[in-house]
């Protein structure tokens, strides 16, 4: 990482130059990758979504130091919200309401028009994105509220439980009122449509998107949208980090009692960390739903929460370029391995010795262990030694003594 730096405060020139280089590379990337097949661009699309998630989680875990093992719940909330409000699912919901509350159903039909009964609701992306962010933020506060008094690992288990609760609800809320369509998930979610251009391509165009006479594959269009969102997220989180609120988060992370004594309203600041982190997850979820066209509870298991956490910690907790690096590595690498491993074995040994899936898991697990053992602070940790004494801030007596 020696030649790339993002430390705008100390090396402004070098860091703006590296940003420009990176941006140029990112802009050209899909056209190069598309030569080798659209699946490669698709992998990077997903990686970008995961980077957004990791950056959101970084607010909670990295800045505010609150261990969250249920972060994927907010991703799920955004995705299901999109599923409900941009697909025929709402019609199914309405149908299941009939027997319970006919009056409610009439009220809904009266507000949204008769069309709702057969077609569901199809909101545009301009409504979905803010709504997903807001609702996820609300859920974030909902999770934050009962956990304010909890510390460390007690917090971890409650967030884990929260994530599981959300997933179980998604799995089962198809009866008696069909919100989520249960384990089958929600299908036929509208693709994103910006200024009348559908990013999935119009019908009969073979998934090619035309913008002003210029055509590109659908995955490339999504790539640029996600890239834009990622850059926006990076910008927002880095501004947040250096704001008054960001400093308050760091203060709480380092010592909650001292932060309180300095006049920081720890309750509000913690709740803000949860809900702001969650809102990024919600937006990423909305994008995920529209990109896939399909959501099901499987995509939101505990393993996903943990892999997002792994991106944050492995990359460099609290350090935005590190988190992005962690996201790229852990989101893209397993997928790349999935594509590369079997052909490589064919070429080397003439047959497939280890299944790609198994080898992928092995390497993923090994990577987590080896990287953390060799770089306990992450691959690209925060370079700035903050103005605080290094010793005995993060660990109490007990941990120090354990080595003695």
């Amino acid at each position: 990482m020696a030649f790339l730096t993002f430390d705008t405060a100390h090396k402004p020139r070098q860091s703006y130059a590296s940003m420009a280089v990176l941006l140029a590379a990112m802009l050209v990337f899909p056209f190069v990758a598309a030569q080798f097949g659209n699946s490669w661009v698709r992998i990077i699309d997903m990686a970008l979504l995961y980077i957004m998630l990791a950056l959101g989680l970084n607010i909670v875990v990295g800045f505010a130091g609150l261990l969250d093992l249920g972060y994927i719940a907010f991703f799920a909330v955004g995705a299901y919200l999109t599923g409900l409000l941009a697909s025929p699912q709402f019609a199914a919901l309405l149908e299941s309401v009939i027997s319970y509350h006919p009056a409610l159903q009439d009220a809904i039909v009266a507000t949204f028009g008769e069309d709702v009964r057969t077609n569901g609701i199809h909101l545009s992306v301009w409504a979905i994105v803010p709504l997903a962010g807001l609702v996820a933020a609300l859920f974030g506060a909902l999770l934050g509220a009962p956990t304010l008094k909890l510390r460390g690992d007690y917090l971890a288990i409650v967030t884990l439980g929260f994530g599981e609760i959300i997933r179980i609800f998604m799995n089962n809320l198809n009866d008696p009122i069909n919100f989520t369509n249960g384990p089958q998930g929600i299908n036929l979610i509208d693709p994103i449509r910006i200024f009348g251009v559908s990013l999935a391509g119009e019908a009969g165009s073979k998934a090619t998107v035309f913008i002003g006479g210029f055509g590109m594959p659908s995955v490339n269009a999504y790539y640029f949208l996600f890239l834009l969102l990622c850059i926006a997220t990076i910008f927002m989180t880095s501004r947040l980090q250096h704001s008054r609120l960001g400093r308050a988060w760091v203060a709480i992370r380092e010592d909650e009692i001292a932060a309180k004594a300095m006049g920081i309203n720890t309750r509000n600041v913690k709740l803000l960390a949860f809900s702001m982190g969650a809102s990024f997850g919600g937006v990423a979820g909305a994008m995920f739903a529209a990109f896939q066209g399909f959501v099901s509870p499987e995509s939101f298991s505990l393993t996903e929460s943990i892999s997002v956490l792994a991106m944050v910690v492995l990359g460099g907790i609290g350090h935005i370029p590190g988190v992005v690096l962690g996201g790229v590595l852990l989101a893209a690498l397993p997928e790349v391995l999935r594509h590369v491993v079997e052909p490589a074995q064919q070429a080397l040994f003439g047959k497939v010795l280890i299944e790609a899936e198994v080898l992928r898991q092995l390497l993923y697990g090994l990577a987590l262990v080896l990287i953390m053992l060799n770089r306990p602070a992450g691959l690209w940790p925060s370079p700035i030694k903050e103005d605080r004494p290094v010793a005995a801030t993060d660990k109490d007596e007990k941990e120090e003594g354990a080595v003695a």
Partner: protein
Amino acid sequence: METFIQQILNGLVLGSMYALIALGYTMVYGVLNLINFAHGDVLMIGAMVGLSILRLLDSTFPGLPGGVQLAIAIVGAIPVTMLVNVLIERIAYRRLRNAPRLAPLITAIGVSILLKTFAMMIWGRSPLPFPQLLSSEPIMIGGAVISQTQVLLLVLATVAMFALAMLVEKTRIGRAMRAVAENPRVAGLMGVDSNRVIVATFAIGAALAAVAGVMWGANYASIQFETGTVPGMKAFCAAVLGGIGNIYGAMIGGIVLGIIESLGAGYIGDLTGGFLGSHYQDIFAFVVLILVLTVRPSGIMGERVADRA
């Protein structure tokens, strides 16, 4: 009333398994302040090794009575899980004792993935049937039924927990463990070799996990490489519910969680007027966990940890 007794019995069975696993979490947490995320998978390895031993016994000594086979399986699984858990500690945790708090959490997750993958490579992907070793004749208690395997499970869990309590309270290594949990630095000054204590802790936790794993297989009659995930997570909840770091807390937390869960499964439908079915039993457990922690932020038996000065 019959349902009630039945659900309490089910809860006790489930809860004693949770308690056995939770002890492994809580003991490690006590001495290292670390959540051993791979503990559930150690349980799975125990169950798998137990199954392999049973298959071997079946082919070499076909006539052995079921109870003896089960005993040999448990006794054989224990050293394997001990070795696995001690190796995990040596490889993945020891070097990170002074590292940032989340680093060992990530290696733990990595180890958990590795154990699952190894199990997948050795024993395959699909669920394996666990043989029925004890008579399937149920025992009736006040209108409720309990299988012989479950009775054995209750007995084993009680014995194991009692033995552990004795070990911790009465023996030299137990005293050393308590000392390290209390304050490792001072324990070191008093001549306690904390590395030895930590290895012992991992080994004991793994032995309990092996017992729980083989009995889990015997009770549910089917195991898979992912078998450890859910009980691991639940037992972690139980350990936290009881107050993590406290071994009696883990026992109580496990039993309480098991009973809450099965009562929840039995009554949640009636409680919500049929709106929520029994598949919400997991939610019940987590909601209770969250409620308990809001009232008692350090669990049922956890000491109120003084805020850092």
